[in-house]
């Protein structure tokens, strides 16, 4: 089904609400059209396309709620969907955490979360992008595995209390792992954009290929505490848990207030207002940022606004459910979609130049929580780890396992580089002292 305009979507939603007999009714209509292509061993392995439009209706009788969905939009189907949500609601237990639906909201204007060029992607575009990536690797006698994924769509909301929302989004993501034929060198790069015109798969493939070629014959050096330069891909991943992602995913007020978070305070309460990180650490969210524009409303209809989460090392805000915000008497802030960590002007190359002794980390992998009390995580380096001396990369080193907490890491900050877009966030490379590597890995 084609992407619906604001008027088309709201016309359907109005009709849905007109069929409701419940105390409250909330309807969300969303659509997404996209495609992907995957390669391995310099050949396309799979390709697919998706096209989904669906309506979710939540009906409420008092404190009881039920949800139903459908993906056809004729009157009879819409009516059945509303009836089913109401039937399920009547069967549901009463929720002690019930919150009335939100009334009309003011959302920010001017988010550039959708670009027509991305909506215009064809199978030929995907083949050309991944084809250029494979050709570069063929030429350099390297082996690549890559994935290109694009989507564009819309989200529209309307409820019986008068809330109304609509926005379009688009995204294209590419990632590539390049390996030397003997398996002794490996490199990785990835990028994502709202606007497909900015995508250049060959550019990322060249970065990954250079890392693969220069990471062969890695030397083993002793594990221990090292100064590291963590590239953005080592801080935030789009396929797995990551150190910065885990930190920002832990700013939930309820967990902190219940005493089960690194933000819980001895004796009760939480650490909001405390300085927990180096004073150069400032992290905020902004759905209007031109590089990472995103939805200006959350799934439950709350506005997404520019919000400072950590300012000069001090925890400024925590997000929560609407129920918890009211109970705790705190600002009602939804979890944002993307994060922006403020940085400086230095590139990763500049950070290397300013390092007497250290290790450059391209990427961290298989990161899992070890102790939620201290936010301790373990994981490994991969796809290009290098020893730095006197401002220069000297030689590749074997991969390490680390055991480290982002809380400790952001206290041991030496320098912050220039932020770049990664998975809908803006992330700078970071130079960190005393990063804890606990063992060596033979993996390439």
């Amino acid at each position: 089904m084609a992407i619906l305009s604001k008027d088309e979507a709201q016309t359907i939603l109005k009709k849905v609400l007109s069929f409701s007999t419940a105390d409250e009714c909330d309807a969300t209509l969303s659509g997404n059209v996209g495609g992907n292509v995957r390669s391995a061993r310099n050949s396309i392995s799979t390709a697919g396309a998706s096209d989904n439009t669906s309506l979710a209706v939540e009906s409420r009788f008092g404190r009881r709620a039920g949800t139903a969905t459908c993906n056809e939009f004729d009157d009879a189907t819409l009516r059945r969907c509303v009836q089913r949500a109401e039937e399920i609601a009547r069967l549901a237990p009463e929720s002690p955490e019930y919150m009335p639906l939100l009334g009309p909201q003011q959302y920010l204007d001017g988010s550039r979360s959708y670009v027509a060029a991305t909506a215009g992607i064809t199978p030929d575009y995907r083949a050309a992008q991944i084809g250029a990536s494979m050709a570069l690797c063929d030429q350099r006698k390297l082996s690549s595995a890559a994935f290109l994924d694009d989507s564009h769509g819309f989200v529209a909301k309307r409820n019986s209390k008068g809330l109304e929302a609509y926005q379009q989004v688009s995204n294209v993501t590419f990632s590539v792992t390049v390996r030397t034929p003997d398996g002794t060198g490996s490199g990785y790069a990835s990028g994502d954009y709202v606007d497909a015109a900015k995508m250049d798969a060959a550019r990322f493939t060249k970065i990954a290929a250079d890392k693969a070629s220069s990471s062969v014959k890695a030397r083993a050096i002793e594990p221990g505490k090292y100064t590291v330069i963590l590239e953005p891909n080592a801080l935030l991943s789009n396929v797995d848990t990551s150190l910065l992602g885990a930190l920002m995913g832990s700013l939930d007020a309820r967990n902190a207030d219940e005493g089960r978070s690194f933000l819980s305070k001895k004796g009760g309460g939480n650490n909001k207002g405390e300085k927990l990180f180096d004073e150069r650490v400032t992290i905020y969210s902004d759905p209007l940022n031109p590089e990472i524009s995103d939805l200006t409303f959350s799934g439950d209809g709350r506005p997404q606004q520019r919000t400072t989460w950590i300012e000069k090392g001090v925890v400024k805000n925590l997000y929560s459910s609407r129920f918890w915000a009211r109970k705790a008497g705190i600002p009602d802030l939804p979890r944002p979609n993307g994060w922006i960590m403020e940085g400086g002007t230095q590139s990763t190359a500049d950070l290397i130049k300013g390092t007497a002794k250290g290790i450059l980390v391209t990427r961290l992998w298989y990161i899992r929580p070890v102790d939620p009390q201290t936010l301790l995580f373990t994981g490994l380096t991969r796809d290009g780890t290098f020893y730095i001396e006197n401002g220069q990369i000297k030689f590749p080193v074997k991969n390490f396992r680390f055991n480290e907490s982002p809380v400790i890491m952001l206290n041991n900050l030496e320098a912050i580089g220039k932020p770049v877009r990664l998975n809908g966030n803006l992330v700078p490379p970071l130079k960190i002292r005393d990063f804890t590597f606990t063992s060596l890995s033979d993996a390439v």
Partner: protein
Amino acid sequence: MKRRDFVGLTGLAAGALFLPSLPGFGHTPVDPARLLEPGADVAVKKRLADAALNAAKAAGADYADVRIGRSLNQYVFTREKQVQNIVSTESYGVGIRVLVAGCWGFASTSVVTEANLAATAREAVSIAKANKLVMKEPVQLAPQTGYGEVNWKTPIQQSAFEVPIKQKVDLLLAANAAALDAGASYINSALFQVNEQKYFASTDGSYIDQDIHRLWPTFSATAVDTKSGKFRSRESLSAPVGLGFEYLTPNAAEQVRGPQGTDTIGYKLRYDMLADAALAGKQAKAKLTMKSVVPGKYDLVLDPGHLGLTIHESVGHPTELDRVLGYEANFAGTSFATLDWKAKNLPYGSKAVNIVADKLQPGSVGNVGYDDEGVKTREWDLIKEGKLVNYQKIRDQAHIVGQKESDGCAYAQSWEDVQFQRMPNVSLRPGTAKMSPDEMVKGVDKGIYIAGAGSFSIDQQRFNFQFGGQLFFAIEKGKITEPLEDVAYQSNTQEFWGACAGSCDASDYRLFGTFFDGKGQPAQVSSVSHGSATTRFNGVNVINTARKV
């Protein structure tokens, strides 16, 4: 359900089960009564499948298979004294895969009519023809004889969907109360119920109707000491199983006591949720004041509910043939156990290490009659007396290792996803000599007994790993002396399995499992079990994970 939905739903990344808000799952929420309705009649499904197969052949396919899938799920979530969410969902549709001149094509649809299936089959053929332009290695499909019209059903005693929701809610709330009474400050509990109704048909002449059931009751109990600001959790020791609701009827004969002094209970094919929750509440509270481990080398005695995850990561994944060949290099990773490595005949582990793959074990989540490309499931050895002897394969991989037939490892998480090679059950054979966990502990001078799965991490080629657990106990001079905290062990796959000193006998054999093994781009999840008896590993490096922030 897809993994990202589950993770979003439960906050599992944070190590505990947290509040679900809005159900989605890519499935349609339905009235629970709908889960009891039968799907389409077999004769109807055969007619639909034939329409697709005939259209695919007419359009030029050399081979085609059709999967008509109806997937039913119900999830019940609670915390402390309240129900958070009850979700019942249904998904129905058809996936069609075709082979045209050595190239695969795939298309799926939720509009299940003969005309539309024929059109979808033609779309799959056109995709295969387009992909042919960039094909380098034509697919070689291992031959498969058609089975005709056959069926298979998970051997369950009671479908979980037939149990009234109130009974399930009451059970979870009673478990919550037991944990809170015993010392937990918070508890989240959940019951996941899955029914995959799968109809597979192929141009080989198979028409396979399967009714597959899985169940997973689980919880996470947390104790908080507000004064010190410390908190600790203990997760349930249940396993996801290929059983009906009978799994939740306690049976003493299906329980194994841990070594003397540990106060732990392991579960075989029946689980006592109330007893486990009460123990979890007590143990979560006790963890707040346990002694922190002194790092160093220890002999580890690993309970099957713990060891299963180590088997999964260090044997299950490296022996997947698609990883070995590089098809997962950009996501899940590759493997140290390459064809060249295998040819060198180097030891994977000690002679005590015998590891078997299967999709046959009753009660395992991998148990099905036929895989998702119509191959009857079987059992085969992966590691024999410490040597790697085979891999996990599907029909288009068998020829690579000179095998004439598939191992039956193809799986797709739903009708809308293409099937590919997924891990079968991978299990460590128990010891042949009589040995109980108690007797095993008696032989250890300086060691640690570990029960339950915790933190886990392994590199992309499956060399270096680190595992935590739920419960740790010091062993000194053949006796359990005290519980420990902050324990994790780091090792290397070959070194670790090389240090395997033997397993307890079959009377201690139990299954560990997961619903959410992730692989592929776009990512798909699959369910897998890992069996073992309590096993000893000598001289493993243990680290202390406590930090100050």
